């Protein structure tokens, strides 16, 4: 029993969770006040939109593609949510649906023309940013009441962000890792030819995965507005990089359909906390940015240990 628990594959699967636990422990130690309902709530709620964006990126990674536009898309959604969704909900909903449709269309275009997704989504990142600037030339807008209410929810005992993160991880895990069609979707990343030979449509799979990325990107943008209460075209510019880094940190791989929804959520939270950790350390301003890097490296150095263990086996 212990031998399967300590098997490298299991170790690697729980690695992201262990990194996160260590980081949290360090934060609690530095600043015991964070170890409270409000503390956790404050520290974690901003990780929710990043986790959602990371999940979106993960869907795209799962079929061996990369989305460089997710940050700009989240910005677009944020602008739509902060303006049209409040002023005229039907228009807002239509704009959000259009976003998902465009994502699905991108999936189809990339598959049919066999295009490198990274270039197409790079182009799209400009398009989303442009549309966002057109919708909201200067920062502003307000959050729809219900989103705000949801994001500020005071759940009993366990803070809302923890519940939300768990729900996201479980829902996506069940849908992608446990359902029958989910295995086809992942298989398309592992060996597209085999999936095709078994009679499945790769076109449909790409469309589904990109549309899912669109949906989760949309949720990320809406959640973000719920927290920030108003929008800005550049609001999520760094999400592209964060979502990729979060997914990789969570054990997803660039090719081969090896993904982990729970890992992605944990990875996103780890990245967010690494930034927080810093503000609990008193470091000279010159080195604060560098400290973020050092923390990431420390958290990841754990991998080395586990890989060593694996090599010895």
């Amino acid at each position, binding site marked *: 029993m212990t031998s399967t628990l300590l098997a490298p594959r299991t170790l690697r699967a729980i690695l992201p969770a262990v990194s996160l636990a260590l980081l949290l422990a360090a934060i609690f130690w530095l600043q015991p006040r964070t170890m409270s309902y409000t503390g956790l709530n404050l520290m974690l709620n901003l990780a929710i939109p990043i986790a959602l964006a990371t999940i979106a990126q993960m869907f795209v990674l799962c079929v061996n593609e990369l989305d460089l536009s997710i940050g700009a898309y989240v910005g677009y959604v944020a602008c739509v949510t902060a303006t049209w969704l409040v002023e005229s909900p039907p228009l807002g909903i239509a704009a959000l649906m259009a976003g998902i449709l465009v994502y699905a269309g991108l999936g189809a275009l990339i598959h049919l023309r066999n295009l490198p997704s990274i270039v197409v989504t790079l182009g799209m990142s*400009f*398009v989303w940013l442009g549309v966002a600037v*057109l919708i909201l030339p200067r920062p502003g807008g307000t959050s729809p009441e219900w989103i705000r209410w949801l994001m500020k929810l005071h759940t009993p005992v366990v803070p809302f962000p923890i519940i939300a993160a768990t729900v996201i991880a479980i829902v996506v895990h069940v849908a992608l890792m446990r359902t029958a069609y989910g295995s086809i979707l992942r298989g398309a990343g592992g060996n597209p030819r085999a999936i095709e030979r078994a009679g499945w449509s790769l076109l449909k799979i790409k469309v589904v995965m990109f549309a899912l990325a669109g949906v989760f990107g949309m949720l990320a943008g809406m959640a973000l507005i719920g927290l920030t209460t108003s929008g800005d075209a550049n609001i999520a510019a760094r999400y592209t990089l964060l979502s990729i*880094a979060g997914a990789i*940190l969570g054990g997803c791989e660039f090719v081969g359909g090896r993904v982990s929804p729970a890992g992605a959520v944990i990875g996103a939270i780890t990245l967010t906390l690494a930034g927080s950790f810093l503000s609990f350390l008193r470091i000279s301003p010159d080195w604060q940015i560098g400290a973020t*890097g050092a923390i990431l*490296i420390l958290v990841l150095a754990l991998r*080395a240990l586990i*890989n060593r263990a694996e090599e010895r086996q």
Partner: protein
Amino acid sequence: MSALSRPLARLLEKPWLWAFVGAALVWLATIPFTPGRGAGDVLTAAFTFATFFVIVGIGQMFVITLGPGNVDLSIPATITLAGSVATKLMDGQDALIALGFVAAMGCGLAVGVFNYALIRALRIPPIIATLSSSFIIQSTAIAYGRGLRIKPPPALAEFTTARVLGMPVLAICVIVLAALMSVVLHRTIYGRSVIAIGQNQRAARLAGIAVDRTRLATYVMSALFASLCGYLLSAFSGGASLNMGEEYLLASIAVVVIGGTSVAGGFANLPGLWGAALFLFLIVTMLNTYGLGAGIRYVLTGLIIIAVITAAGGRKPLR
């Protein structure tokens, strides 16, 4: 097939062709709005600025060719660090130009080795390793340079802005450099090793390729090119600044992929870097010339990139 159409078909297969076609079309669309010798001036400006994109693009291209997951996100920070260190050491004196160069290259060497140590010894995925190290490098640059903008030595500044027959001297040097690197890519053991590793790292190891040595060399090279860019850029734009590298994060990746290099690794080409760099500069210039608002400009930039790549189409896998 007739004798004439065969070379033409060969040309049409070149992955870099479309970046140049895109650049040419955008240039033609700009000309009607540029009176007199404006068309030539636009090209001169394009070559001037594309040069810097190409320099970092070369390093990034070798890294990306190493296969999925390989990308160097520390390029912007390295540019900043090398630029700051070099200008501070040279302190505006022509006599110290060589010293500044050596110092910049030293920064690159250190960064490259550090990056690869993280990747290899600590087994950190390259994208996160280089992201983390970029923070540390940026901090080093801040602590060292304190954001002071020191003037470059006049002779160096003159060199980076010099022209012959309207063509920037620096651009000519970098065209030669790109040609050299193209030979390195296709005709040396090192280049072959990079391409082989990018297709299948395990197979490469079993085919007797020195995988670690090649990957180390590639990350070091990427950092060296970034440093070179930082050195030249700080001379060109009158000093180093802390954010001088910022826009090279996306740009270095963009010129590589728009230039027709495969993001999945194992397939690269150098001419495409020039095509893509010119293309990206000329799009901005064209839209600026049309005097459109920022929103519309972004949208059009994106659509033009997608249109060009769609026209080029992808390569179908064989089996």
